């Protein structure tokens, strides 16, 4: 007697793992290696998100990467991503043109605790591409500026040519209710702004340390140094939030690729309080 072999049916795909097709509406070159894409789904369903959240962006046939949302949370009909071309997938994303399609899963992860800063001073510190995940928080706060105390942004980039959102930075700097300090690591002339690391600008920021919420995004060493300096200035570790980046795959807290000590960054993070991760930021094995 022989067993009857039947082909298996299609595997059930959890909805959270199913990308939605989004069309590229426009592409803006921010720097030599960084583009901002505006995307929309064909069904025009808005993708509601909180500042600081990310999506899994799938470039068909190439791969999928986690990218923080950099657009305005009050305009969810358009999904905005700023992507730096540093690997096969992000290079392919950077080559996309208007009309091309990508797959989107999400949004995922914890966002910036913007409401926690209501009635208090808010200090945002970004480094390099790290300004992109902070941009939705900036746009949200500026839309309801009166709900916050002093609001400041300190932004550092490698060179003047590497500054993201240059026009927007100029616009933000022109406001009387928003302190914006910008610095670059190196300059060889023509730049009238500051040169040096972001920590050098923190003493200029007008805020009450005891009543401050800080949000940091950039290279982890930068965030660690900035957070430590903020603590030294009197900001509480539990009021300092960092956006961490790890090798996310499933983005729903299952696969463990993004494990960082006891946390899956895609699920518990990417935004986590400094107090919770401070010790881990000194462990090379993590």
């Amino acid at each position, binding site marked *: 007697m022989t067993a009857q072999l039947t082909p298996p049916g299609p595997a059930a795909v959890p909805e959270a793992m199913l990308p939605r097709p989004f069309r590229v509406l426009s592409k803006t070159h921010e720097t030599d*290696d960084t583009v901002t894409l505006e995307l929309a789904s064909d069904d025009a369903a808005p993708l509601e998100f909180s500042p600081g959240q990310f999506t899994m962006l799938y470039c068909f046939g190439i791969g999928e990467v986690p990218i923080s949302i950099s657009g305005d949370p009050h305009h969810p009909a358009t999904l905005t991503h700023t992507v*730096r071309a*540093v690997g096969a997938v992000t290079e392919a994303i950077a080559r996309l043109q208007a009309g091309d399609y990508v797959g989107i899963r999400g949004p995922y992860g914890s966002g910036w605790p913007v409401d926690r800063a209501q009635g208090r001073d808010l200090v945002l510190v970004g*480094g*390099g*591409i790290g300004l992109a995940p902070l941009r939705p928080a900036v746009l949200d706060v500026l839309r309801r500026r009166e709900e916050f105390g002093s609001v400041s942004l300190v932004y*550092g*980039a*490698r060179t003047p040519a*590497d500054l993201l959102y240059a026009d927007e930075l100029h616009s933000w700097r022109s406001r009387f209710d928003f302190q914006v300090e910008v*610095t670059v*690591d*190196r*300059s*060889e*002339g023509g*730049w*009238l*702004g*500051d*040169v*040096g*690391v972001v*920590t*050098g600008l923190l*003493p*200029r920021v007008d805020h009450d340390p005891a009543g401050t919420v800080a949000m940091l995004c*950039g*290279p982890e*060493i*930068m965030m660690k*140094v900035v957070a430590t300096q903020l603590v030294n200035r009197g900001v509480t570790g539990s009021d300092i939030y960092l956006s961490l980046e790890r090798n996310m795959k499933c983005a729903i807290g299952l696969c463990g690729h993004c494990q960082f000590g006891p946390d899956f960054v895609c699920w518990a993070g990417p935004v986590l309080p400094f107090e919770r991760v401070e010790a881990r930021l000194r462990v090379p094995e993590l």
Partner: protein
Amino acid sequence: MNLESLRRDSELLRSLDEAQVAFLESVSEETNVVAGETLFEEGGQADRFYVVSVGKVALEMTSPGRAPMVIQTLGPGELVGVSWLFPPHRWNWRARAVVDTKLARFDAAEVRRRCEEDAGLRSALLAVVAEEVVGRLHRARIQLLDLYRSGS
């Protein structure tokens, strides 16, 4: 020069007592430089130092055939020049105003002379300048890491 208003922003001046600030006032004068003007040149005699009141100063290294390389800019309240306190009293960098800048200029030779007689002033200045130098060293080390480099 009256240093009272500058004292609020300046770590150097805040760390000194009233008598010490009064002495520094007696050896200081207000100076204004226009954008692009040089405050001191690399290799020159470090016979003065400055605290920025308004504006911005770049510390830069020059090299034939290329634009000056700026390592750091200094803004209001910040000390411009530390080489005046340590032999051989020669500047290691060039200091140039990035924008029109107002500063307090101090006679370093007079300050050094007073330090020989006044151990308290010497100790206070060494402490605050050392702290400033440690801070700049820390920031320079972070700059060396080139954290924003693509792929880092």
